[in-house]
């Protein structure tokens, strides 16, 4: 069967869940091979890739891949594509994933589709555009299809394969070493699941009223094992760190359950959460546009409703 390259999304040596989703998806298209760019590909990480179906794991380990922005990764991936002539390349639809994909598409003279939520066996990709109002099916018509896929589009399923490590030599051109990463600042993460990957997201907006107000949102999130999100009004005000912002200029999330508290539902917010499977809303304004998306909504004060909900969940779980 045709080889499908899956670019591994990893940080600090651990593989992101989206990679397992991409490997699962790749199995329905051909034979998946994982591509690890940069350091950190230890035995444990490789075993995980094998568990989700990677027949081969290409490892291109060079400090240049981590020390310079995007261009070296695009070079390494493009040279692997030239070498292996895969049927398609799947990349996580993150900011950096899309940039790598864009540069690779030009190098490999190949068409690119971003933000796919599904890919069929004939490599037709499904996208959900214009805030989820239109479903588009597209196909790459030239070169090797380069497709970026949104996190949470496929349920990851294990299907153990060989996961044979194959080291590939990398020589990064000087031209690709133009933008040097001189520092990394990791904001506090806490013990909650990753926002983009979480099955449940509980968010707060301006209605939460302040940094302390996020306490009720966090308490609900923790009883549900959920990630915490925020609207831009809340991150701009400094109530919650920016990396938890959901929306057009924040993260795009697509969890099983999204609970919006004190969020009005501006178009830029919806752009990041509209494809959530089930949406629950708490807002004191019955006219708030976010209610249009609600599977279940309560018009009321979040400071009364949310703590009651948290307590009730604990009670029901005994």
């Amino acid at each position: 069967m045709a080889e499908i390259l899956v670019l591994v999304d990893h940080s600090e040596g651990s593989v992101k869940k989206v990679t397992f989703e991409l490997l699962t998806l790749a199995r329905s298209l051909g034979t998946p091979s994982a591509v690890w760019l940069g350091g950190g590909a230890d035995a444990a990480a490789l075993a995980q890739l094998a568990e989700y179906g990677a027949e081969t794991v290409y490892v291109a380990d060079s400090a240049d891949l981590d020390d310079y922005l995007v261009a070296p990764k695009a070079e390494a991936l493009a040279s692997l594509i030239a070498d292996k002539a895969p049927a398609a390349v799947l990349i996580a639809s993150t900011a950096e994933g899309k940039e790598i994909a864009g540069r690779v598409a030009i190098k490999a003279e190949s068409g690119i589709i971003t933000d796919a939520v599904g890919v069929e066996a004939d490599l037709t990709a499904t996208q959900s555009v214009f805030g989820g109002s239109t479903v588009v099916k597209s196909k790459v018509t030239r070169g090797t299809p380069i497709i970026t896929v949104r996190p949470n589009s496929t349920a990851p399923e294990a299907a153990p394969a060989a996961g044979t490590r194959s080291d590939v030599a990398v020589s990064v051109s000087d031209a690709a070493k133009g933008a040097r990463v001189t520092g990394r600042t990791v904001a506090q993460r806490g013990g909650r699941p990753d926002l983009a990957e979480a099955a449940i997201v509980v968010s707060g907006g301006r209605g939460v009223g302040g940094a302390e107000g996020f306490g009720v949102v966090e308490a609900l999130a923790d009883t549900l094992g959920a990630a915490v999100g925020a609207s831009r009004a809340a991150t701009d005000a400094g109530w919650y760190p920016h990396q938890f912002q959901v929306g057009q200029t924040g993260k795009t999330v697509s969890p099983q359950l999204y609970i919006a508290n004190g969020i009005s539902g501006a178009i830029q917010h919806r752009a990041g959460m509209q494809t959530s499977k089930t949406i629950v809303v708490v807002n004191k304004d019955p006219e708030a546009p976010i209610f249009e998306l609600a599977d279940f909504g309560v018009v009321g004060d979040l400071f009364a409703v949310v703590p009651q909900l948290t307590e009730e969940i604990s009670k029901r779980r005994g």
Partner: protein
Amino acid sequence: MKVAVCVKQVPDTWAEKRLKPEDSTLDRESAEGVLNELDEYAVEESLRLIEAHGGEVVVVSMGPERAGETIRKALSMGADAGVHVIDDALHGSDAIATSAALAKALAGRGFDLIIFGSESTDARMSVVPAMVAERLGLPQVTFAQKVEVGGSTVRIERQTEYGFDTVEAALPAVVSVVEKINEPRYPSFKGIMAAKKKPVETLAVADLGLEPAAVGLGAAWSGVADFAARPPKAAGTVVSDDGQGGVQIAEFLTEQKFI
């Protein structure tokens, strides 16, 4: 310092967007065209850099006739001159062709910085800045929440999944900015009047040294096979809190097997 700021005209953020049945391209006529929100931040950042370091800001836009309004908007905010890449042959260009046309329009003009917004609100691909950097062989310093220029170096804070990276490059370089970076100014009345007299050069595909067949819908390396409006979501249940709102949500979550 010479700064190019690339802007796009998009359908009004709040307008309902749709694809045209004839050729599956975005219907740009049915909604008011506006300067892409995120590009406003790029224009603002360009102006601030020039205010700090001296120099000039050139607005570059590819689009049909009425994208001229968008160039004027950026000029009225304070940019000095415009370049409008306009040609019927460009209709339906994908990101690959768009980046090719923009790269040609930008090359050889002595720009120290080429600044983009981090994404357009219509296509939302976020790939054109990286593609232009690739084509021009320039360093890419993108998703900047902060931009500083010192001597011949640009240093940015790149917004990441986990916080931010500090990234440095020698000029010339390609930058994209996120909305956190600044607060765009409104054009003043004086600015609007002055904009009318600012020069806008137009460039056709032939002026760029590209073949018409290399751009536009026919040259796209990917194509829409089919599209459909998603049926509107069935209306959910909305209740007023009578003191039991939290319990009612718990009941719903139990039915849905989340609890």
